[in-house]
């Protein structure tokens, strides 16, 4: 048992009060209240254009809310918060990019530091420890562009853990990974949460790979939202009310499929 589990911190790691955001006259969401406690895993679900990435950007301090506030560790969210880790979705690395796996993690450790670009022994040790933590030692010295999506995302997890974050913000980190790598990467994130009490906000269009880890779901649709445990939210009546049209939720062998959502979106309508 880690000390953090023995003495849970009562203050929420992340807290949104009366958050509202819209573009032009289209409201994405308003009146959003959310407290994320230590060690909690929150999935943010919703189709394209429902503002889930904008919400994440607000937590990162890169997007101003129209009203309300976002507090990280009790202070207004701002870019470069030391206790906040960020895992983006996998991107294609241009060939010839002068980065090996370990260099990506090194950027997380000292990339923001000005001054002569001298890598200290501590920096190197920190990178080695992070690589070990995500099981990336075997491919750490290969060029980033030659690594598979799953390998790249493992390195992204290591990069995000560089400053021992209290909060991990993940923007579709499993996108375009195959099922095996989806499981491996999500388990890495979950293990970190369980061992260090790191809170996780996980933006995704498909809840299935993380369904067993999620404590609460924030479901965005139609300029509205609903918050609750997966069992409370992923139900016919709740989602039908949210969408304003009949929606059916099927569960089979631990997977969830939502059918009939009115938008041209196929969130967690995954054919398994």
């Amino acid at each position: 048992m880690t000390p953090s589990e023995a003495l849970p911190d009562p203050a929420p790691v992340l807290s949104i009060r009366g958050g509202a955001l819209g573009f032009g006259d289209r409201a994405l969401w308003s009146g959003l209240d959310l407290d994320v406690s230590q060690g909690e895993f929150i999935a943010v679900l919703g189709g394209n254009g429902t503002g889930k990435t904008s919400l994440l950007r607000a937590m990162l301090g890169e997007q101003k809310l129209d009203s309300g506030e976002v507090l990280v560790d009790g202070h207004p969210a701002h870019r470069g918060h030391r206790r906040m880790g960020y895992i983006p979705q996998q991107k294609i690395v241009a060939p010839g990019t002068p980065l090996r796996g370990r260099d990506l993690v090194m950027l997380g450790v000292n990339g923001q530091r000005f001054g002569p670009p001298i890598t200290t022994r501590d920096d190197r040790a920190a990178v080695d420890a992070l690589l070990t933590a995500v099981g990336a030692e075997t491919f750490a010295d290969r060029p980033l562009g030659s690594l598979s999506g799953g390998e790249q995302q493992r390195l992204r997890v290591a990069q995000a853990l560089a400053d021992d974050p209290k909060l991990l913000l993940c923007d579709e980190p499993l996108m375009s990974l195959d099922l095996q790598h989806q499981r491996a990467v999500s388990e890495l994130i979950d293990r970190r949460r369980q061992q260090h009490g790191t809170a996780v906000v996980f933006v995704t269009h498909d809840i299935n790979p993380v369904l067993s880890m999620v404590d609460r779901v924030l479901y965005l649709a139609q300029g509205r939202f609903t918050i609750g445990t997966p069992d409370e939210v992923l139900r016919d009546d709740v989602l039908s009310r949210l969408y304003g049209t009949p929606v059916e939720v099927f569960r089979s062998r631990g997977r969830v499929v939502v059918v009939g959502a009115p938008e041209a979106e196929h969130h967690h309508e995954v054919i398994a």
Partner: protein
Amino acid sequence: MTFVDPATYLQLLGLVQNSIIAAAVLGIVGGLIGVFVMQRDMAFAVHGISELSFAGAAAALLLGINVVAGSIVGSLIAAALIGVLGAKARDRNSIIGVLMPFGLGLGILFLALYPGRSGNKFGLLTGQIISVDLPQLGLLIAISIVVLVSLLVVWRPLTFDSLDPEVASARGVPSRALSFVFMTLLGLTVAVSVQIIGALLVLALLVTPAAAALRVSSSPVLVPVLSMIFGFVSAVGGILLAIGGSLPISPYITTISFAIYLVCRLVGSRAKVAR
């Protein structure tokens, strides 16, 4: 082409000593900044800046003021325009495409109006280091050193911002400020290069060495080191070869840097097959 005898060569060497130092510093700085030029996909911007730098230098020549200063003003105006108007790659390319012929045209106009020696005229386009006087050489070296030191100070955040902008921004790297600093440093480097190798050939020192280095390595330490060495060898080697003969310096520099690139391509593709 005739080569001079060794004794005369040594004498010439003494005369152009400062030019060699200037070329050496520029080769190193050009190789270093070239790494970022490649990472930020700015090769075309370098060419655009150099044409406006040429226009500035030509204007200075016509007005009888410091040519290096004119070159710097032209460079910085171009760098600022490209930086402010061309944040996105596509906008940037169209802005450069518009600026480049305008700058070149202006420069040609100023040169046509300039009543002085014709040697100076083509020098700005194709290189003229030997004809740069001593105080100006000192200025070129000083600027190069300022760029070198500044680059080292912003090295890590600039690398982060160039290669991984999304996470860099989330980690608090000041992306806009860095972009401004980088464009300024690039403008200064281009202005120096125009004096040494000429506006039309700037890419040979600011892009080719880095492109060659990227062919043979993806280590963030080895790439800049190789690029610096390649830039240094091209610039200094070019001058050493040129002073023995009667041809201008620039073709030597461009040929050496191109040859290095070819070799690196060959080595790089061999290594890939072996892997």
